[in-house]
């Protein structure tokens, strides 16, 4: 039984994997987009 299917008290126990997935995905997408912006930038990698 997964920790998410807990006691029927209506409270979620655990579920940190969802939290890490959400926060990690945010960093992944923001980071990826930031890199694409820097690479496509008119001055190349030089950010000025």
């Amino acid at each position, binding site marked *: *039984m997964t920790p*998410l*299917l*807990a006691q*029927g*008290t*209506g*409270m*979620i*126990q655990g*579920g940190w994997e969802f939290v890490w997935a959400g926060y990690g995905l945010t960093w992944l997408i923001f980071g990826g987009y930031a890199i694409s912006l820097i690479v496509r930038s008119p001055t190349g990698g030089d950010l000025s």
Partner: protein
Amino acid sequence: MTEAWKRRLFALAALTVAGGALTYLSMGDLGENLVYYWSPTELHDAPNALQATVRLGGLVVPGTMNWDRDNSHVTFDVTDGNKTVSVDSSSNPPAMFREGIGVVVEGKLGGDGVFRSERVMVKHSNEYQAPEGDHQENWKSSIAGEE
């Protein structure tokens, strides 16, 4: 009337019509009719409710929940304060499921008046609260300390 004024007048008319339609969408009775789920009262009053797969939404009546976890089988009553429908689900509801919480179930109303479902979803309110009691106070003092 000059060309430019004609254009402005037409633009004004077009924007009024579009804005009026959007206002109608927000003020009209569409929201009460085109719904994602039905209430138990609406399900009772519907003449052809037995034929269709529908979603039913309401609160789980306290004391009616009967959950056999090993066989993934749960029965409970759903109410909107007016009418009540018994639900028989053949899947385990999510962890937030409890007596008194809002649920949306997808399935069919049988001839015996029991709503059979394979999909139970929990509808959370827009309230997000810290745990009650000591925790709450701790967090408050912690904030006061930070600021």
